[in-house]
Each structure stands twice: as C-alpha cells, then as structure tokens.
C-alpha cells in the first residue's frame, strides 16, 4: 500500500532540526575576520591608516540593520521607522554620558547601553500595538509616522537635546572604570564588536528556537498560525520590542563612540539606509545586515569621495536592480553560487 513509505529514522530528523542552530565554519570565519580587522586597521602595521572609528560606525549601522532583520526578515513586518529607536537610544546614552560629566554612575557606557535598551524597548513595546493590525502600507506609514514624530520632538526639545546642533560635550567614562575611549578608536572598536556579538548571539538563539520558527510561520501565513494556536499578537509584540531595544543599543553605541548625538541619528534617511543595507546584504539570514553595512560604507566612501550626488544615484540604481533581478541580496546571491558549485541546490 502507498500509505506507509519507508522513512528515514526519526532521531535523524531531530538531529537535522537541531543542526540548524549549529555554528558553521563560515560563521566562525566571519567573526575571526572581524577580530582581524582590529589588527589590520588599528595602526599596528606601518602604512595602513587607522580606520577603527569608521569600523565602529559600521558595527552600529550593522546592528541597526540586524534589528530590522528580526522584525522584517523573520516576522515580516515592513518598517520604515526603526531609526526612531536608534535615535532614541543615541539620545538616552548621550544624555546620560553628558550629565554624568564623565564620572562613574551616569557616564558609564554599559549603564548607558542598558538604559538605551530599556527606553527604546519600552518605546517599541508601546508602539508595537500600532503595527499589529493593518496592511503593509499601514504598517509602513505608522512606523514612518512614529519616527517622524520622534525626530520632530528631538528637534523641538532644544533644552534637552540641543535641537538641530545635537548634544554637545558627551563624555563617556572608561568602560567598567578600566578602559578609556582613545583617539584611535581601539577601545571603541573592541567595545562595539563585543556588544555586537552579544546582541547577535542572542538574536541567533532566538531565530533558531521554536519562537523563531513561529515568527517565520506568522510571516508565511498568519491565518494558519492562529489556527494552530500560535499567539500571533503576543509574538509580534515580543519581537518588535526586542528589535527596538537592539536598535536602541546600536544608537547608544554610535553616540558613545562618536561622543555626540544629533537629529541626524533619528532622521528618516537613517531608517531608509538601514532598511536598504539589510535588503542589500540579504534579509532573513542575520548576517545580511552586517555584510550589507560593510559594503554600504565602503561603497559610500569610494563613490562618495568623488561626489555626493553620484553616491545617491548609484545607491538608487543598486536598489532598483536588486529588486528587479536579485533575490535575497548579496548573501542570497552567494548562496545560489555555492549551491550551483556543490550541486546541492534544487535545479531551477
């Protein structure tokens, strides 16, 4: 009878499910490379200029894109307002550092990060209820609207935020009272990389858990997800809140390492850039945002050095071509090549 075909042993299936969460060699390679960058661009090799400040900035941008990946790549919520939480985190950390006068309790970078995560997370929690209902378009406009309101607030509350000039005199105290931020960005880079890794590791645990699977299910078919008993709204609120907290941490990192916070950090183009970075790198892989951020900033440096207008033009062109011809961004492209190379992938 056709009913019961012989199937692979059951423990095999469990092992394969579990192996989804195992670290792969290319992941290890990625993080080793990130550490290696410290030595290459850290003013240790004569002739190679120090670029650690730029790299720290890339980390902050990548972390922001990672937070969007959690919401968009996994849970399928289209957002144009992640910059709101980023900017909020930047201002919280900046204000704490500034008012702490570079002394321990308030100006401590780690406390600043925690506070930024808490405030941004709280803002994410409150606004998450606004994106539960509605179509992609409503979600897009609501997230954009929230971001615009916050940007306008940052601009108007001059007494607190310094208005259009931004916060002046942000001074972070040494991390844990030991490592002070130096001019070359040694501390900044190591600090940023450690924070990035912790956030990444946490996100990675989450997307490879049952919770993460339920997010993908919601993205795929919310109606069916409800019918099998997934508490759709609660899951979306949870991931949106977490992503907002991570975006806040990303903003706090930028404020602490650049010792400033400005309306630029909360503006629309921040959200748009981060979304673009994620899509460019590839959404739904976690690494897409990080790789995208590196490529984005390198491209920006190379092309932007010629003229600023050129940069925007090429950026737009890349976006258009990406949407028309490439699925899954850079990582999707590499995955396709790799599958063809090893002939593992299902033939088109």
């Amino acid at each position: 009878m056709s009913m019961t075909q012989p199937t692979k042993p059951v423990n095999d299936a469990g092992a394969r499910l579990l192996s989804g969460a195992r670290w792969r060699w290319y992941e290890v390679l990625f993080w080793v490379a990130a550490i290696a960058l410290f030595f290459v661009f850290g003013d240790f090799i004569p002739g190679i200029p120090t670029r650690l400040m730029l790299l720290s900035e890339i980390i902050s941008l990548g972390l922001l894109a990672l937070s969007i990946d959690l919401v968009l790549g996994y849970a399928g919520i289209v957002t144009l307002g992640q910059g709101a939480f980023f900017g909020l985190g930047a201002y919280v950390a900046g204000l704490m550092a500034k008012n702490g006068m570079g002394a321990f309790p308030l100006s401590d970078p780690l406390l600043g990060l925690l506070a930024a995560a808490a405030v941004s997370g709280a803002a994410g929690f409150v606004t998450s209820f606004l994106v539960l209902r509605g179509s992609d378009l409503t979600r897009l406009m609501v997230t954009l609207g929230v971001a615009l309101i916050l940007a306008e607030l940052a601009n108007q509350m001059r007494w607190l935020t310094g208005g259009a000039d931004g916060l002046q005199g942000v001074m972070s105290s040494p991390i844990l009272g030991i490592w002070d931020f130096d001019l070359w960005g040694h501390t900044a880079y190591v600090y940023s990389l450690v924070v990035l890794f912790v956030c990444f590791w946490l996100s990675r645990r989450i997307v490879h858990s049952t919770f993460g699977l339920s997010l993908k299910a919601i993205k795929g078919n919310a109606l069916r997800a409800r019918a099998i008993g997934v508490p759709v709204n609660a899951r979306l609120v949870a991931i949106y809140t977490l992503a907002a907290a991570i975006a806040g941490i990303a903003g706090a990192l930028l404020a602490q390492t650049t010792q400033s916070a400005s309306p630029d950090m909360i503006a629309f183009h921040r959200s748009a850039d981060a979304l673009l970075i994620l899509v460019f790198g590839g959404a739904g892989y976690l690494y897409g945002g990080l790789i995208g951020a590196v490529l984005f900033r390198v491209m920006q440096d190379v092309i932007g050095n010629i003229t600023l207008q050129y940069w925007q033009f090429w950026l737009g062109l890349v976006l258009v071509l990406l949407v028309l011809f490439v699925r899954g961004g850079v990582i999707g492209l590499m995955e396709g090549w790799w599958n063809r190379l090893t002939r593992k992938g299902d033939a088109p």
Partner: protein
Amino acid sequence: MTYVLETRSLCKSFGGIIATDNVSFNLPAGARHALIGPNGAGKTTFVNQLTGVLDPTSGQILFGGEDITNWTVRRRATAGIARTFQINQLFADLTPLESVVLAISEREDAGGQWFKPLGAREDIVVEACELLDTLGIGDVREARVGALPYGKQRLLEIALALAAKPKLLLLDEPAAGVPESEREQILNVVARLPESVALVLIEHDMHLVFRFAKTISVLVNGALFCEGTADEIARDPRVRQVYLGEEDVGHG
C-alpha cells in the same frame, strides 16, 4: 446529554445578506457528520463562526458545554477545535516537519520557547514524525512545503489540524482540487481518523459524503434544511430536489 458542539440560534448577516439563518445544531462525541448544501449555502461562513474567524451576529456557540461565542481563534484552537481550509493555508517556506513541530509545540505550550534550539524537545520531534508517517507524507517531511504536490499539501493540511489533538475536527472539502491519482490516499486518511475525534465534513462531493458520514445536515440559504442519518437523507425527496442538477457541478 452534553454534545461536543452546540450552536443555538446562530445568525450571521453581511449588510443585508443573511449568510447563517438561525442555525441550531448539535454534534455528539465521536460523530461522523457531514454538512452539505448547494453552492453559496453558507457552509464555510458557518465553519468560520465555529472557529472564531467570524463573529456571529447573534446566537451562541457551545463547545463541550462551555460558551465559546466570544473566544478568540487561538483560544478555540487550544481548547480542541481544529480545521482544515478549503484552500490550502500552509507555511510555504517551512518544511512539513517544521510546520507540525510548531503545531505540536504550541499545543504543549512550548511554542514561546526562545532560548533552546529547535528540535531540542525529542518527544515533539518523534510525535511529529509519527504523525507525518501515518498520513503518508513522512518521505517529504524535510522538503519545502511550497514545492510539494497538491495532494501532499492537502494531507499536510490535515496533519496540522491533527497535531493539536483536537476533540473536534472540521474538514472543509479535504479532497477539493486533488487529482484523481492522489485522491484515494486522502480518503484513506480520513477514514482512519481516531474515534475520539468528532468529525464534521463540509463537502460537495456526494460520493465522499456517503462513504464517511453516519449523519448529515443539509444547509440551504444559510438555514438548516433537514437533518438525519445518511440513509434518511439519501432517500429524502426534498434533498434530491435541492441537489437536482447540482451534483455534477463539483466544487464551490
């Protein structure tokens, strides 16, 4: 006696159109019941109210004696009402195994587990594999759902519903659109569903209905037209009249 499912004077109207007209309906435990009716009789609307997708305009729904009229979709699902959809509602980008593991995890209240990796609960994986095997789709459990043949997708629909270990299973045209070659497999699965599950088959295909159903309700224009055992309904001249010329139409 208490029924698995009861509706009391259930009404639903859309604007001026009455889709469910004062339906009072009882379903005993372990039932093999079919809900039939011509196109547009309001069968799917009725099911949508039972599962909570639509709110009734008036009336009551009881499940195991408890009033569930105002419960959410999810709460009803966890309480033991499961359904399949007339049009496949699956997770195209997951595998059948992942889909069923998720459904079982939610039943076991382990769906919110965010730190342990997927597959850490061996009992859930074993149960999922067994379920997929009983439905005869164990061989494709790690393929992408979206790439499966239609018949296998229909079976996965049933698997997802069964994963909740439901007390009541609503099958909305389980074999609709399935090619003849894969049809028998689905019919076998339906025939072998455990006695503990009360079954309501929403169908258009009379052969299928008379093959499985012991009792039948006929829905016409949103109202209960008549009820009875399969034999009674088969002999009822009024039912024949309602279906005159309808039997060949096929689906709806």
